[in-house]
């Protein structure tokens, strides 16, 4: 949960510092960023991994058709009933048939479950990120810009939500609610507790942005509140939002995994990486691969998003951005 509270605020370059002014040719900012991005090795690598995972999630049925085993198919021949039903063969039963080995107890194909698991993990993380970002930006902007009563109400709500031990509450809420659509519930619950972190930063930035003279000058030209918020202030929050969002993704992958570990994640037999790691945990000594494989996929995903967030911040931050 701590991932969200990084030093965004601290790391934004000082406003108006001449060292940050650039005098490049006037290409569209988007294209310039893209170019900077394409030449940045860590950024490209992490994007690559994320894209591969997204594609794997989308085309899971096709991939599984090629690999030969579905995510729910039991393979009794791949496990040893005499030994606590552990996978037959070394490295957790890795073989030509089962590329990443099989799950103890059932003989289900880990490769297929990883591929299908990406669906849940990515869906939860990405949707929750989108939702928290929207909520956080809108509420942060409103609180920061409108101030007064609206700010008081929103700030209290944020304080209120942050005062809750989020994890405890997620567990409590999720275990009390029916498991019909866990993915949706996960997204909603994660977002419910997630948005105040972004909102807080957006709010504080808005507070200072709205004091900036360009806002006053827009106001002097007769801009409405809506125009000021969305036309004048929002563009200046761009880099903060990008960075926060990319940092949020790994946080939520981890949260989903954690909730699955605690038994309130997705409903079986649907795999998710978190659920896989959770069920692999007790096997760590006898079948380490069962644990290592989903662990490595999750680790790489989290790392990719973190790296991406970092690089985006560096690249965007080094541009003409002065806010």
């Amino acid at each position: 949960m701590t991932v969200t509270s990084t030093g965004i605020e601290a790391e934004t370059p000082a406003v108006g510092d001449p060292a940050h002014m650039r005098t490049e040719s006037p290409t569209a900012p988007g294209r310039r960023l893209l170019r900077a991005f394409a030449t940045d090795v860590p950024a490209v690598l992490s994007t690559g991994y994320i894209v591969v995972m997204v594609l794997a999630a989308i085309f899971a049925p096709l991939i599984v058709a090629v690999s030969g085993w579905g995510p729910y198919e039991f393979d009794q021949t791949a496990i040893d009933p005499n030994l606590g039903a552990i996978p037959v063969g070394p490295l957790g039963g890795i073989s030509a048939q089962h590329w990443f080995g099989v799950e103890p107890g059932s003989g289900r194909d880990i490769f297929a479950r990883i591929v299908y698991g990406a669906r849940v993990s990515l869906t939860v993380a990405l949707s929750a990120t989108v939702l928290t970002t929207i909520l956080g930006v809108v509420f942060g902007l409103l609180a920061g810009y409108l101030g007064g009563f609206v700010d008081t109400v929103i700030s209290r709500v944020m304080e209120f939500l942050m005062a809750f031990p989020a994890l405890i509450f997620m567990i409590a809420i999720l275990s009390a609610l029916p498991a019909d659509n866990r993915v949706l519930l996960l997204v909603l619950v994660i977002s419910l507790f997630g948005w105040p972190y972004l909102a807080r930063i957006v709010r504080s930035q808005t507070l200072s942005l709205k004091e900036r003279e360009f806002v006053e000058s827009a106001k002097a030209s007769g801009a409405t509140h809506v125009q000021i918020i969305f036309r004048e202030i929002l563009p200046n929050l761009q880099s903060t939002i990008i960075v926060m969002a990319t940092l949020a993704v790994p946080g939520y992958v981890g949260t989903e995994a954690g909730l699955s570990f605690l038994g309130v994640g997705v409903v079986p037999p649907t795999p998710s990486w978190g659920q896989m790691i959770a069920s692999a945990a007790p096997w760590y000594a006898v079948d380490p691969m069962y644990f290592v494989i989903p662990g490595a996929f999750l680790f790489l995903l989290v790392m990719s998003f973190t790296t991406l967030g970092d690089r985006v911040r560096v690249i965007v931050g080094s541009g003409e951005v002065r806010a």
Partner: protein
Amino acid sequence: GGGEEPAANQETTGPQSGGTVHMLQNADFSYLDPARGWDGGVNAFYRLLYRGLTMQTSGDAEDPNAIVPDMATGLGEASDDGLTWTYTLKDGLKFDNGDPITSAEVKFGISRAWDPDIGIGSPYLKMVIDAPEDYQGPYVSGDLPTIETPDEKTIVFHLKAPFPEFDNVLSQANAVPFPEGTGAGDEFISDVIASGPYTLDSYTPGSSIRLVRNENWDPETDEVRKAYPDAWEFEIGIDPATIDERMIAGQGSDASAIASKISGSSLPRLQTPELQERTISADAYCTTYMSMNTSKAPFDDVKVRQAVNWAIDRATVQNASGGNQLADVATAIIPPAVTGHKEFDLYPSEGHAGDPEKAKELLAEAGMPDGFEFTLDIRSQPTAQAQAEAIQQSLEKIGVTANLNVIDTSIYYETIATPAKQNDAAITGWCPDWASSASTFIPPLFDGRNIVDRGNQNLAQLNDPEINQRIDEIRAMEDPQEAATAWGELDEQIMELSPIAPLVLEKGIFLPGENITNYYPSTNMTDLTIVGLKDPAKS
């Protein structure tokens, strides 16, 4: 401690007196007060602290399910009409405070079961012993007139109806003596008055309990309890995986430790000769089964239920439960370790892998050739989930889709025991309240007259007049042998109706520390009173 003997001399050393036996466990005991607690784990613990008139015999006996006298000089003597049971106390019985135990204390202790707030443990005393309609235990209603104590040694019980297994009722944990007037309110929550070989030394809820010898317990009066160690230490709140690790490593005081079952994931690590030597396997006393709600479609059709029983691949369920070392396939309701078991398989298949063809035929006959969908309630617990997934997978083959409804463990039983909340099917298990008879196995689950709105045990909601009647007949049988055979037959009769699908019998693999001896673990109730140390000096 008394062991100055060299440690090398192990084979020859039986249990020695002295030392401390440790027990590692994840969950705390429910209650120190035996009127309140009632589950396998705490029952075993109560044997160290409390004595009753009768008790289940020692764990190393030939028939460990048998009931023997404890504080009583012999088993109960029933009157001809079976309504009056008389017991006589041994001499020299004392509480840990030195006070003598007389029939009055026994009666007082037993009458606590009627207290609405305290008597939340075993219900059998209340069910069987006659009592005034509005009797609310000694603290509220005073003396219980239906238990008589003509003298200090004699105690007479009056029953509501004949109950041939009354000795079993008195072996329940809540039929133990307490000094008159004690134990009101929360008095026995953190401290107790012991009558057994040990007494409470310290108790930190959720983390540790220490028992030390009750100096007022006279071994001469006790044929079952051996009480070798000087003290017991229960370490509570340890992660199950860590318990396994510690038992395998067996370092330091862990060599003098025992614990509950080893989990399936640790099993492959027990393959070294030393560990194999320590490993003890114990039979299952409980049956894991899937109940099918016969009160509504599709499981109101016996063919559909039979089809499910045919289709389930019990081998995959067995593997999901940890493989053949930890589970046997169940085909009957009563497990082999419980008296009354009958061996049969009405829905046989090659390697217990299920017979989808047969199942499909039946489905077609039932008018559902394309299968159906149903909701299966399961606990949010890994093994239960794995078992459910295995069932789901085997039913998929006959076109039946099982949607899993994971319910948090804490509210699972409440949910499925409320017919209004219960779904089409549920995975659960049943253990007998006493294993010397199936009378606590079949009736609670299949007596149609037991179906209630809340706290319902008859999950299948089977209400078959023939079966109900047969239950009454067997219960009335005086001869335990005859009754046992009859229960087995009834088991088969019920399985014809297929209200449940027996799945597996979950056995236990136990790994005591290497200094432990005379340990006879059981999945029902491990007899802790006979456990001892090889070398008390090492504990």
